[in-house]
């Protein structure tokens, strides 16, 4: 650090350092290669050279991925959203009740069958957003910690899902509704949502404010950002995406059940964190979250492929999540010392 005026470096370019996603991507490739090698050793098959397996792999995690896109934004603000899994169940139930076909024997609303598909879709997104607005408002205006607010929503939304039909599944959905869960549509929806919010976070004022609030709420406030209103927006988006995930889940299963989405919130948080989003706030990217989601899918798919017992799968998955965060902490510390 020189102090003479002629030695000042000119701040002309804002060169991008290697994005952290690259290291996460390397982890993904590493995990995939390990499965590939173990596959050849133990069951004489390729893990990666199987298009059907890869499709199913991403399909399985698409719903969690959609949630993770929302949860990532919440975590960037320094918060957390534990309610997403329950919101999936709640929206799946309520939206499905407006998506039943006319020829179904026991519809929830006999007068409201065979409605155009747009109605259940809008209702689903609206209910998810509403749950998010409630979360955000509680956090912003009563100043309770996000953990508590969304924990409350997690319990209550699940309660709504069970109460709605007294535990009965909602079936007989219209083919139009089921379409959004068919084929690779869930994957397309996941990646589309990820692309929209990737751009949203990086190139819009909404995104800039989201990062600023997470990095230093007081500084953001003094800089004129209405933190309260912005947080409501962020939680509403997270809720809306959980709602979307609920629609996709119901459509994919062609039925809705109150128990849908249990533990999804934790998988989504894991995906975000594996993808490099810092729970301390201010840092994280959707691209990382997408890779994190795929890592989760690869692990599940890989273990199944290797015919690892489901019990071991969970034990190992837990350890890998923790290891990913430890590695990330270590990397952060190293970078900070420069």
């Amino acid at each position, binding site marked *: 650090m020189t102090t003479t005026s002629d030695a000042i470096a000119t*701040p002309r370019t*804002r060169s991008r350092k290697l994005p952290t996603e690259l290291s996460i991507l390397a982890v993904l490739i590493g995990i995939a290669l390990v499965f590939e090698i173990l596959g050849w050793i133990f069951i004489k098959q390729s893990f990666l050279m199987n298009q059907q397996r890869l499709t199913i792999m991403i399909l399985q995690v698409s719903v969690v991925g959609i949630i993770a896109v929302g949860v990532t934004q919440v975590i960037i603000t320094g918060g957390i959203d534990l309610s997403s899994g329950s919101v999936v169940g709640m929206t799946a139930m309520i939206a499905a009740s407006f998506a039943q076909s006319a020829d179904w024997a026991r519809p929830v609303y006999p007068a409201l069958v065979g409605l155009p598909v747009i109605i259940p879709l809008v209702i689903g997104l609206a209910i998810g957003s509403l749950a998010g607005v409630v979360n955000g408002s509680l956090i912003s205006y009563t100043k309770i910690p996000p953990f508590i607010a969304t924990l409350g929503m997690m319990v209550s939304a699940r309660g709504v899902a069970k109460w709605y039909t007294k535990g009965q599944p909602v079936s007989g959905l219209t083919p139009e509704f089921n379409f959004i869960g068919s084929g690779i549509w869930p994957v397309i929806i996941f990646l589309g949502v990820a692309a929209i919010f990737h751009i949203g976070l990086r190139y819009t*004022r909404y995104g800039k404010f989201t990062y600023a609030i997470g990095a230093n709420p007081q500084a953001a406030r*003094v800089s004129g950002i209405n933190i309260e209103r912005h947080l409501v927006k962020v939680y509403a988006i997270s809720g809306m995406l959980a709602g979307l995930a609920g629609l996709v889940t119901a459509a994919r299963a062609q039925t809705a059940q109150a128990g849908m989405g249990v533990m999804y919130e934790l998988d989504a948080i894991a995906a975000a964190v594996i993808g490099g989003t810092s729970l301390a706030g201010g840092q994280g990217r959707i691209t990382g979250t997408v890779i994190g989601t795929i890592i989760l899918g690869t692990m599940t798919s890989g273990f199944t492929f290797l015919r690892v017992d489901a019990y071991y799968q969970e034990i190992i998955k837990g350890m890998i999540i923790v290891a990913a965060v430890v590695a990330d902490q270590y990397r952060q510390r190293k970078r900070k010392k420069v």
Partner: protein
Amino acid sequence: MVSPQTMRAVRESGATPQSEFLLEISHARKEFPGVVALDDVSLQLKRGTVHALMGENGAGKSTLMKIIAGIYTPDSGTVQLRGNDIRLKSPLDALENGIAMIHQELNLMPFMTVAENIWIRREPLTRFGFVDHRELNRRTAELFARLNIDIDPEIQVSYLSVASRQMVEIAKAVSYESDVLIMDEPTSALTETEVAHLFAIIRDLRAQGKGIVYITHKMSELFEIADEVSVFRDGRYIGTHAAADVTRDQIIREMVGREITQMFPKEEVAIGNVVLSVKNLSLKGVFDDISFDVRAGEILGIAGLVGSGRSNVAETIFGVTPASSGTISINGEVVNIATPTIAIQHGMAFITEDRKETGCLLALDIQENMQLAVLQDKYTRFGFVAQGELSRTCEDMAQKLRVKTPNLAERVENLSGGNQQKVLIGRWLLTNPKILILDEPTRGIDVGAKAEIHKLVTQLAHQGVAVVMISSELPEVLGMSDRIMVMHHGRATGFLDRSEADQVKIMDLAAR
């Protein structure tokens, strides 16, 4: 090489060899990836002296200090404690060998009591293994009596002012019966009376034969308290002088490697119309009945002790804590400033007192930090940020403010205090403010950057910006202001014109 454990045993046996120096560091070098933080640095601390370390931010003082305190181990070079080679591996090692450090960032646990904080890890126990709180408080009271500190040992630290916390930190260091005490800018948050108290404690410790490494940016303190001064620049050791035979100019020259001819480049500026007018402004329980006008081109200084309500007035004018009564007028129109957003819409800018707490987004880069305020109403189309245009604007601003960085993608966390402050000033200049409120604009900033900031503020006044500047440094207030409002206990105790103001008058009004 003697292990810390052996040293401790030797020390406890009372058989410490009488070496010439309490602490001697020779040819220390410390590298971090990509940066040589210290290069061939030596330091000799004598018994019973206060040894000041001077240097701009980034000169290597902090690294050296952290080596002494056992936080870093040097890559090469030796550390001798009382004549014995020693290699400290952790802060605990250092503490147990009689080296205590008082950090600039206070390291107290806010929800524990003062006594618990001081004796943590060394709590006296009862027969049953429970913490003996009575004994704990008694020891603390005894320690405080010795240091002439008036704080209740049983109070929670979170209730204490910054100054009181500082005193607790010092008492904690003293409680280890340390021989070497490292103080990193201990006065940066203290008022003049508190500084006097601190200095009395330091003199007392010195008389007991302890060695004190004292880091400061304030020249006046140096001559008041230090016996010796070592100067550093760019990670190198420049020289050591006895404080008695060195001049202020000489030290500044050594620190910056260039002459600073004019510390306060105050220019006569044409004073325009009243831009900001505050009438009977009050915030319940904090300050009361504050009235003043600031004109275009004028710099109004606000002086007063820490806790006199200066910063609260600034926060209220800016809408951070809306007023409970009174009015704020801008260009003759009364406006209700309920939030910072409204303040910004009326052309106000506010550089807050605490860079880290309320200013910087430490984890983000310079670009993101600088563009934060201007994004409120400019450089966006349909919610999308015009990043190309904005980046060019920020680059120009960074260049104009001479922010020392290779590029704007550098994290603000990695910048020195002076450069962080420049980034924050840049954030607000981008909004083209008509009213600029500065709260301690040069606290903890090196001399060079300080002069640049002073020059910049003068330039802004020249361009017709109305400036309100709060500062605890009297020379700064006196040097920069056209008028000075002095506050005491939440009230304005007087206004002084530039021509009549001096340190004595200000202190008289501030401490009445």
